[in-house]
């Protein structure tokens, strides 16, 4: 199923295969998300040397290490800040942030809203599995109400965050939601995000079967994935989608577009150009081709 | 000048003390002197005690903060209290009598003038700091008038340059300049 004029996608071309087997639990949705990203990278013809992956801490943070690219595994909640410096200093790179629901919305929440506001070109993929998996299954800002976690032994009493609503309100250039259930649609959504000239935010509904699923008796991995189109998500995921993949009560696909200037372009044209500098920023010499 | 000369310009935040200190430091630089300028201020930008200190030398300055003042300028009542031990017995004080009610007394040479009132007569009370600067430089022989004029021109926004130049001259004329200052003025 190759896109027009390019070789068929082989995920092994984009992985550090010497690191296999990977650390992810059987049934974890993050591998599907990783495949969708690399497939999109392939179809967008992004050279691995120009691809910079910045990840935070948590299960989502470990995903980046398997990618055969320039990979930066940074501190908890801060990948967007590192990516901001990297993208401003090196506008020639394709910067992709992979983060999780805890990394992005709890400890990194402030950075998310300001990255959305700034609209600096990068793609932020938030893998939402409703749980802090790596630390053993604590409640996260997206854990559905009443769910059991190790820190909500009587059921989660807190309301959840709508990450896409937050990103939209904060002004992100492109906001979308995809699911690991629909891998082709997810790949196409990530392609749009990668091609977008501005800050693109994609929430990916992933699943933690080993910890969250077992704790809440949600069945096997396929059962959990199928549940993504069912009713397990909160009501605010209404059906107002621009291009729905298929009818269900989740808003998926492109959720919002805020056509705004890309921050790097604005900085270069408004601040650098009047001083006779417009091209490469931050005095970094062009990479060897 | 064998020993460093120490000055303090004090008053209320917003009176332009940092500005006049910067002009003076710039003029001294043009004269080939070495200066160290420090400041103390309150978290409030306006109204609190504000002061700017200068140490002036012909060579390296080991300790850049004031320890024995030769000159103290007080432009507002909020700055009327000062530690007397910080002044040399031979110090000269300039007090703005239009804004300082406390009667400053001590073994020093104390000179009171209505700097702010003079500035108001020239069109803007806020040039009182420059009037005082004129008087200070007439009383001392710290730097040449040419350097002060150049420093004023360099530091003052164009629309206030006439005012500041007039204010400086008015301050200068308030006193009988010292022979050294007169000579420096004449050379300019």
């Amino acid at each position: 199923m190759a896109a027009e004029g390019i070789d068929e996608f082989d995920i092994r071309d984009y992985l550090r295969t010497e690191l296999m087997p990977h650390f992810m639990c059987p049934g974890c949705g993050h591998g599907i998300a990783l495949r969708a990203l690399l497939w999109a990278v392939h179809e967008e013809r992004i050279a691995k040397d120009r691809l910079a992956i910045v990840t935070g801490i948590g299960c989502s943070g470990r995903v980046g290490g398997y990618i055969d690219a320039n990979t930066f595994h940074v501190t908890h909640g801060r990948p967007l800040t590192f990516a901001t410096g990297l993208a401003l200093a090196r506008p020639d790179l394709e910067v992709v942030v992979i983060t999780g629901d805890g990394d992005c919305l709890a400890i990194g929440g402030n950075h998310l809203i300001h990255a959305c506001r700034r609209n600096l070109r990068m793609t932020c993929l938030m893998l939402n599995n409703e749980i802090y998996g790596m630390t053993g299954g604590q409640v996260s800002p997206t854990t559905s109400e009443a769910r059991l976690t190790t820190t909500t032994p009587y059921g989660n009493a807190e309301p959840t965050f709508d990450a896409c609503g937050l990103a939209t309100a904060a002004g992100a250039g492109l906001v979308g939601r995809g699911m690991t259930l629909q891998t082709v649609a997810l790949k196409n959504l990530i392609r749009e995000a990668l091609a977008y000239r501005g800050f693109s935010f994609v929430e990916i509904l992933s699943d933690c079967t080993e910890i969250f699923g077992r704790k809440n008796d949600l069945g096997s991995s396929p059962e959990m994935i199928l549940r993504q189109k069912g009713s397990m998500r909160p009501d605010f995921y209404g059906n107002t989608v621009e291009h729905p993949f298929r009818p269900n009560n989740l808003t998926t696909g492109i959720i919002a577009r805020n056509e705004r200037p890309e921050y790097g372009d604005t900085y270069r044209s408004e601040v650098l150009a009047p001083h006779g500098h417009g091209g490469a920023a931050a005095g970094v010499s062009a990479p060897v081709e | 000048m064998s020993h460093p000369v120490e000055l303090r310009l004090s008053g209320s935040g917003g009176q332009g003390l940092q500005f006049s200190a910067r002009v003076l430091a710039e003029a001294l630089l043009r004269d080939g002197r070495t200066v160290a300028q420090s400041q103390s201020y309150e978290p409030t930008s306006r109204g609190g005690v504000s002061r700017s200190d200068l140490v002036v030398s012909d060579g390296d300055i080991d300790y850049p903060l004031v320890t024995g003042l030769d000159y103290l300028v007080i432009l507002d009542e909020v700055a009327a209290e000062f530690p007397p031990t910080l002044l040399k017995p031979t110090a000269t004080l300039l007090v703005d009598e239009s804004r300082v009610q406390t009667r400053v007394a001590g073994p020093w040479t104390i000179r009171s003038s209505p700097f702010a009132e003079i500035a108001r007569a020239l069109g803007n009370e806020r040039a009182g700091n420059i009037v005082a600067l004129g008087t200070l430089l007439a009383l001392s022989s710290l730097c040449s008038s040419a350097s002060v004029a150049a420093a004023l021109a360099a530091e003052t926004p164009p629309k206030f340059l006439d005012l500041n130049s007039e204010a400086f001259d008015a301050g200068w004329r308030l006193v009988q300049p010292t022979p050294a200052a007169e000579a420096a003025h004449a050379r300019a």
Partner: protein
Amino acid sequence: MGEGQRINLQGNHACALGAIAAGCRFYAGYPITPSSDVAERMALELPKVGGVFIQMEDEIASMGAIIGASMGGAKVMTATSGPGFSLKQENLGYACMVEVPCVIVDVMRGGPSTGMPTRPAQGDIMQARWGTHGDHPIVVLAPSSVSEAFSETIRAFNIAETLRTPVVLLYDEVVGHLVETVQVPDPGSIARAERKWATGPREAFQPYAATDDDIPAMARPGDGYRCHATGLTHGERGLPTQNPAEVERAMQRLLGKLERHRDVIDRFETFAAEDAEILVVAIGITARAAKRAVAEARRQGIAAGLFRPVTLWPFPEQPFHALAEQAKAILVPEMNAGQLSLEIERLSGRPAKVARINRLSGEPIEPAEILKIIEELARHGR
């Protein structure tokens, strides 16, 4: 400093101009008194040389942004004061672990907590060394004049780039806001150190290989090496490891690399110290008060001397040892409750001979106060 321009310059501005002269082309910061002048000057100057200035949403983000830009290949800096420095410590530890060159300026004000924002202090001496968690290598430079705020900033960049380490520039509010007449050298006359970049075939490249000088070459994104950087303990390939032997080897190199390059790092000033019986040790504005006090003591016939560590961490131990040995008493004046004195007591070999002057009021320690204690020590010993 040789040819150049003679101007009146503020300490914080000197730091900014030194950074530009050293090749800094990326600055991220957050407003905080008394360091904001550094950010303001960088915002003004960086666009003139094609660099990037960004004010981030918080101190944590500005530290993250400079590390990200440095990993992209830029020379980078941020500036802050105590409260902001505390917030930067997490990402500073990352830079130590991943060996990312960067310069962090801490203009010290009264603490703890919000403390006295407009008043000077020297309370971050230990935070600068041990602020982030775990054992880590770090270099801290302590300029005491406007001229040094310029020249030590340049040295901070050169050390950071040469040794792949974060360098902290630590000075008090007095030095930050002080304006002094200085000779600023021509930009062309300034020696700039450049980072060792990865070269050669990709297959053979190991991002944390133990090299001759213990400083690994850095892979620049886009150059074809496609490496992994992680704050997890990593081996020579840059990949996470918990293999005890590999961890031990990696950590020994990391923690030992600065010790191997003392020639680049160490810097200190002595004044009348050769035969000093009373040795004063101080940094920043306090060191300048101490210098005058020592000069006055010498005029009185007291054999006083000054040792001023310009590189504060790692402390210039070797040159200090000999002087400490011969001194009958050592005096450590500092604007805190006793931080530098802890290190001096340790290095003196005999803590009992170390006397202290501690100041917490937000006022600098004056020469006369130091002279008074020198006189007492001369009369009664320690």
